Each structure stands twice: as C-alpha cells, then as structure tokens.
C-alpha cells in the first residue's frame, strides 16, 4: 500500500511539471471548467424561477446537490479523466505491454498515472462552491453528517470510475478508437440530475444496473434526509459490485489483449 502511495506521489509530481509546460492550455482548461460550473448552476437557477421544487428538492437543497456534482466531476477530471482518454489508445497500440511487466497492478497504473494538474485547481474551486452551498443552507449540518456525505461522495466517484471502465474495457475486443466512450458520456448525463426526477423503470435502472443516479444523488440524500442503513447498504453494495465487475472485465480484457506484436 505504501509503495502504491509513493508511486502515486510521483505521478502527481510529474503531472504538475508536464502541465506547466503548456501554460496557455492550463489556463484555458481552468476557464472551461469555470464555465461548466456557471452553466450547470444557471440551469437549475432558471428552472427554480418556475417551480418551488424539482425532483422533491428545494432550491437550497439543489444547490447542495449541484455543489456535489461539481466536486465529484472535478475529482473525476483530476484523477481519472486523462487516463480514461488514453486507455483505448494504449490497448490498440499495444502500450499495455510496458505495464504488464511492471511489479504493480496494470489497472492501477493505467487508471491513475496521469494526474490533471489544471483540474486540481478546479477541484479547489468546486470544493469552495460546495462549502458555500453547505454554509448557505438554512439549517446547519452537523460535522458527522458532512463527513458521511463527503465519504459517500468519494464512494460515488469510485462508482463513476467503475462505470466508465465498463464502457472502455470493450476496446480489448472491439479495437475501436474509443471503445464505447461516447455512449458513456451520453449516459453520464443522468448522474448530473437529481434522482428524484426519475420515475418507474428508469429510476430502477438508474439505481441498480446503470447506477448513475447513485453517484451524487444518494450522498446528497444521505446529507439532507439522513443516512439510513438501507441507503448506505444500497450505495456501498452497488459500488462494490460495480468495482468487482470492473476487475473481472479487466482480467478478461487482458486475456483477450493482442499485445503490440499482433
């Protein structure tokens, strides 16, 4: 474990020095994410001009949800996004060969080696927005509730990573340039909307087989309405199953991997 943490510290250091080589792009990306935050907040702000509730939540509750979406997205962009972008390329070009001979997990290396330094700045901003959202909420939250919320948000990020891998690992068999990445990006829209708007079979689907509605909505629900054992078991159970499926798919994918010599 210590070895993996030290390795990750090296990844972070290299990523920062690489990011500073392209300073203009570094600035553009920070601006891009700020716009994304502004647009997403505006979306709900405009809708709440026409309704007192949306998905069962008030505007104040929705601001907390949106803050959670920003933080989860920023963690995803900082820690995983660059690696997820290059994974299909590595599979198709046979670059995984280099990682298979290393004495660390290939999944760990390929999922985490690139830390997006510019997105880390956005993570700080997103965290600031979330703190503001929590502070402006009419009834203050206890420290334990906030700690549980943040822990569940991290669980949501792991769930998001696992789901993303389901759509990228098929590259081992399909050999397309991006696997099913664009389909994931489409489906991922469900995670940035509150689960209360989903009804019937869509709700069942999005909280079980395609658990987009759990990523931020369930941690927010735990904070706003209390972390019931049922809710915790649901989120943790689905995340464990999703991560387990990712490990299994990765193992199967490596078996089908054709290597660089093919």
């Amino acid at each position, binding site marked *: 474990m210590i070895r993996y943490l030290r390795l990750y510290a090296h990844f972070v250091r290299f990523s920062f020095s690489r990011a500073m080589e*392209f300073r*203009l*792009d570094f600035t*553009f*990306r920070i*601006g*891009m994410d700020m*716009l*994304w935050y502004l*647009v997403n907040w*505006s*979306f709900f702000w*405009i*809708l709440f*001009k*026409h*309704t*007192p*509730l*949306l*998905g*069962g939540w008030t505007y104040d509750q929705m601001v907390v949800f949106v803050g959670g979406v920003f933080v989860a997205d920023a963690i995803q962009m900082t820690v995983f996004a660059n690696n997820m972008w290059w994974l299909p390329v590595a599979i198709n070009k046979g670059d995984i060969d280099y990682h298979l001979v290393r004495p660390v997990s290939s999944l760990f290396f390929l999922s985490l080696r690139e830390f997006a330094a510019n997105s880390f700045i956005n993570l700080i901003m997103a965290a600031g927005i979330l703190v503001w959202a929590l502070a402006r909420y009419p009834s203050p939250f206890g420290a334990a509730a906030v700690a549980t919320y943040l822990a569940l948000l991290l669980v949501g990020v792991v769930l998001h990573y696992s789901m993303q891998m389901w759509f990228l690992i098929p590259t081992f068999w399909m050999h*397309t340039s991006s696997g099913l990445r*664009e*389909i994931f990006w*489409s*489906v991922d*829209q*469900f995670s940035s*909307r509150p689960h*209360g*708007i*989903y*009804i019937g079979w*869509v709700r069942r689907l999005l909280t079980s087989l395609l658990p987009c509605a759990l990523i931020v909505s369930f941690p927010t629900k735990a904070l706003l309405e209390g972390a019931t054992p049922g809710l915790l078991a649901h989120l943790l159970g689905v995340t464990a199953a999703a991560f387990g499926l990712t490990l299994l798919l990765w193992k199967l994918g490596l078996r089908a991997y054709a290597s660089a010599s093919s």
Partner: protein
Amino acid sequence: MSPRLLWSIASVEARKRMSYRLDFWIHALVGLSVQLGVAYLITLALYRESGASSIAGFTLREMMAYYVLVVVIARVVTATEMDHSVSQDIYEGALSRYLLYPTSYPAVKYAQQIGAMAPALVQCVIFIAWMPFVLGVPAGISAGGIAMGAASVVVASLLQFMMILPIQAVSFWADNVWSLMVAYRIVSRILGGMMIPLALFPGWLRDALPWSPFPYLFAMPVDAVLGRVSALQWAQGTGIALAWCAALAVVTAVVWRRGDLQYTGVGQ
C-alpha cells in the same frame, strides 16, 4: 468554389462519416435517446411539481416538442463541432497541402461541414418522424414555419462554422484549443436554448440575448417551426445572424492573417 467541387468534397465527407455505420447509428440512437430522456424527465418533474399547466407559454406537450426538435436540429448544426480538423491541420502542418487546392481553405472546410451534416439530416428526419404520433402535431406548425425553420438551419450551420473558425485559429499560438472548443460548446448549449427554452430565462437575459449570435444556432430554427416567431421577427433574427457571420468573417480574416505569418508546415 464551384457547386461541382462543393458537391464532391461534401459527398466524400458524408461517405467518410458513414464508413463505420453501426458505430454511427448506435452513437446517434443512444445520444439522442438519453438527451431526450433527461429533458423529458426534467420537464415532467417541472410541470408536476410547479402545478402549472403552462410555463412561459409552453404546455407540457409543446415543451416536449421543443426539446425533440432542438435536440435533432442541434445534431445537424453541430455535426462537425468537435472534429478539430482546422486546429489539427495547423498543428500538423497540413495547411500547406491546401495551397494546391483550386479553392480557399475555409471553403473546403465548409464543404466538409455540409457533407457531415447530410447523414445527421437523415437521422434528424427519422427521429422527428415519430413525433406527431406520440406528441401530436403542435398547434403552431405550418408550412411557412417549416420553410422558415429550414432556412434558419442553413443560417445556423453557417453561423456555427463562422464561430468555430476563429476559435480553432487560436491553434496558431496555443498548443491545444480543445478546452476552448468545449467552453464554446458549453456556452452555446445554454445561451442557444438547447438546455432550456429561452422563454424560461429571466427577462433581462431574454432582452439581451437576441443581440448575441447564440439564439440563432438552435432556438430560432425550432421557434420558427413551432410558429413561435412571426415572419418579421424571423427576418430580423436572420438579419442579425447574417451580420454576425459577416463580423466573424472579418475577425477570422484578421486572426488568420496574423497566424499565417508564424505558421510552419515542415515536412508536408
């Protein structure tokens, strides 16, 4: 550019887009279904929880018709949005080869955009075909409105092209303009009326937006088809959109001339 050359470039591009047919249709089907699904569920929750039968002049059915049209029309207008072909040509030094082409570089790129729009247009027709059976024919639809809407799509595609060109030309100086393109995409989606109908925006923003180019990308074609704008409003809007095209052409020419001075096409 001669119409024959334009047709040739456009048809090559259209065929290129269709070369991975299964991918093309799966991505379109999933993308459109999810976008519509999310819009439908948000809209349904909005009407249910507000208790209103009409919001900003839209009934639930009209709002749904708006979303169906805006999602498919945006697919046509933005067919080449994230291709980065211009910035790629600049990075890779591939601009040099266009010196041999019997037409200007922007004309070739616009012909390619038209080619990319053709398959998206087919998808658009297929996806809209079910609308009358599920949502009924919205009350304001007329032949004149559809004609105005079709003309607005043509103007929107030109406007989209003219807005993207100067952003991509930043590649002469920057190592990567991907984030600028994503930023443009984010802003155009909300201010163009793709995420929410512009009628729901606060009054001060509704008053200011018609002077910007964004409403003419997505909202204007849809509003024209749905009969939500008069012929006069449509003509004024189209005039503003074309004026933006002209202004952006000037900006692009200036940026391009400056960028060209430091362009190197080694090895091409």
